[in-house]
Structure formats: structure tokens, C-alpha cells
């Protein structure tokens, strides 16, 4: 009797593990980062790429629902385009001009004071790389929003859904990158500056 229970427990745990793996796999595929669109690609090429990446499958109910509501969603996306463009400008200004510029100035002043600024320069280079990555993904995101705004969503509901899912993935990526940049500045660069303030 005990052996039977143990065997059933083992089988249940194996089945549960397999189930989790299969679910996790499908989620991972659904959330796979979109590939960068080819340079110079046009709308049709990007649409085909996103359809192939996302592999959208809609039942009849979902198709009908999207067909009825996609036009209104496109209007919201169009208003989002303007605020996103302002956001891109602001982040580029803060990351690549304000923070980057101030760090370069203080590095120069620390050098004149005879301090070894190698580590701070390394951190600044890493920060610049992260800021450039954010800017690149922001470009892909705004491009996808532009594609959503122009697609004939009622004629190509699957394409609309593929583009929307792509935009959502880029949006999440931007949030992750922004948080990463903030953490890097707070946890790496600011302590280095504080050390210099104590040494001087």
C-alpha cells in the first residue's frame, strides 16, 4: 500500500513537471523578444516578419471581437505615438546628454585633482551602452506603433494582433531597460562618486 502511494506521488510529480515545462515553453515562445526589423524594411516586410514571429491563432469569436474594436484601438495608438515621441526625446536628453555630460565633466575635474578615474570611466561607458540600448529599442517600439496606426486592421486582424503583441513586448523591454539603467546609476555610479567625495 505504501509503495503504491509513493509510486503515485512520483508519477504525479513527474506529470506536473512535464505540464509546467510545456506551459512554460509556450509562454516563453509567446514572450520571445521580437527580432530587430531589417534596416530599410518597409511596412509589408515588417508585418510579415511579426506575423511569422508571433504565430497568432484566433478563433472566430476573437476575430469578430477584434474586427469590431480594432479601429478604436488604433485611434488610441495614434495618440500614444505623440507622447511616445516626446518620451523618446526626454529619455535621450536625460541619459545621453544630462547624466552622461555631467559624468564626463566630473571625470575631467577629478583627473585634474590627480584622482584615478578608470573605474568611473568604465562605469560611464557601461551606462552609455545601456542608454544606447534603450534608445534602439525605443526606435523599434515607435516603428511598431507607426505600423499599428497604418494597418487596415479590419482587413488583417491577425496582422493587427501580431503588431500589437510585438509592441507590448517592446514596451515591457523598455520598462526593464529603464529600471536597469536606474539601478546601475544608483547602485554603481553614485557609490563611486561618494567614494571620491570622501577621498578628496
Amino acid at each position, binding site marked *: 500500500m505504501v509503495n503504491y502511494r509513493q509510486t503515485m506521488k512520483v508519477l504525479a510529480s513527474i506529470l506536473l513537471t512535464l505540464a509546467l515545462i510545456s506551459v512554460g515553453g509556450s509562454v516563453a515562445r509567446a514572450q520571445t523578444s521580437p527580432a530587430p526589423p531589417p534596416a530599410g524594411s518597409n511596412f509589408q516586410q515588417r508585418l510579415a516578419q511579426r506575423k511569422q514571429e508571433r504565430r497568432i491563432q484566433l478563433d472566430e469569436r476573437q476575430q469578430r*471581437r*477584434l474586427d469590431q*474594436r*480594432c479601429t*478604436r*484601438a488604433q485611434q*488610441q*495608438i495614434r495618440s*500614444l505615438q505623440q507622447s511616445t515621441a516626446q*518620451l523618446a526625446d*526626454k*529619455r535621450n536628453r*536625460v541619459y545621453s546628454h*544630462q*547624466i552622461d555630460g*555631467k*559624468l564626463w*565633466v*566630473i571625470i*575631467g*575635474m*577629478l583627473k*585634474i*585633482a*590627480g*584622482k584615478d578615474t578608470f573605474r568611473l570611466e568604465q562605469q560611464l561607458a557601461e551606462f552609455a551602452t545601456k542608454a544606447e540600448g534603450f534608445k534602439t529599442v525605443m526606435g523599434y517600439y515607435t516603428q511598431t506603433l507607426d505600423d499599428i496606426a497604418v494597418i487596415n486592421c479590419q482587413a488583417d486582424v491577425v496582422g493587427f494582433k501580431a503588431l*500589437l503583441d510585438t*509592441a*507590448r513586448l517592446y*514596451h*515591457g523591454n*523598455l*520598462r526593464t531597460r*529603464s*529600471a536597469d539603467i*536606474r539601478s546601475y*546609476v*544608483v547602485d554603481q*555610479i*553614485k557609490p563611486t*562618486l*561618494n567614494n*571620491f*567625495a*570622501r577621498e*578628496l
Partner: protein
Amino acid sequence: MPPDTPTTPANPQPSTPGVYGPPSSGQSFSGGAKPKNKLPLIIAAGVAGVFVILIILAVVIYNRSPSAPEQEQQQTPTVDPEGPQAATPLDVENTDNSITQDLGSINDDNELPADQLSDDNLNL
């Protein structure tokens, strides 16, 4: 008897006065030309004058040019209020605070809200 042919006198008198005649200006006549005696003096005076002029110019130029310590001071700028200076603890602290303010101007929850493209937000 034919008329006497005038004969050339033995000691012909020159037509140019003062060449062979006694000196008319009262100068001693030692047998050489006057400019030859004055020429060395003139040359020496000219050379001395040139030397004097050069010395005066040298003094003037030396007085106008800055002295050596002043020159060193001019070549090595020490304090330029407009240019970069050595960092002080206050400079580093100000930079730190300024960067903190820059980060504070960024708000992901407002600018990139998580539900910005959700079905609920887009009424899908």
C-alpha cells in the same frame, strides 16, 4: 730778318690756379688730397653712430619685453576662472545630487505604465 717766333717758355705757367700755385684757403699742404684724411673719421663716426643706435634699440626692446619670471607666468596659466578646475568634495556632491534629480525626472509608472497597451486600456 724774319720776326721772332715766340718760343715756349721753359717754365710754363699753368692756366689752372691753385693746382700748382700757393694754397689759397690757408690749409697746410702736405702733398695729399684733403678728403683722404677725413674719410676714416667719417667712417668711424658712422660705425659708432650705428652702434649707438643698435644699443639704444636693444635697451628699448629689453625694457618692453616681459621679464623671464613674467614670461613663465604667462606660458603656464595658473588660475583661469572660466576653465576646468580640480574637483572638490562639493563638486562631486553637486554632481551626485544633480544626477539624482535627473533620475527623479524620469517616472516609468507615468511615462511607461505597465498596462499602457493592455486589452482593457485599448478596449479590445
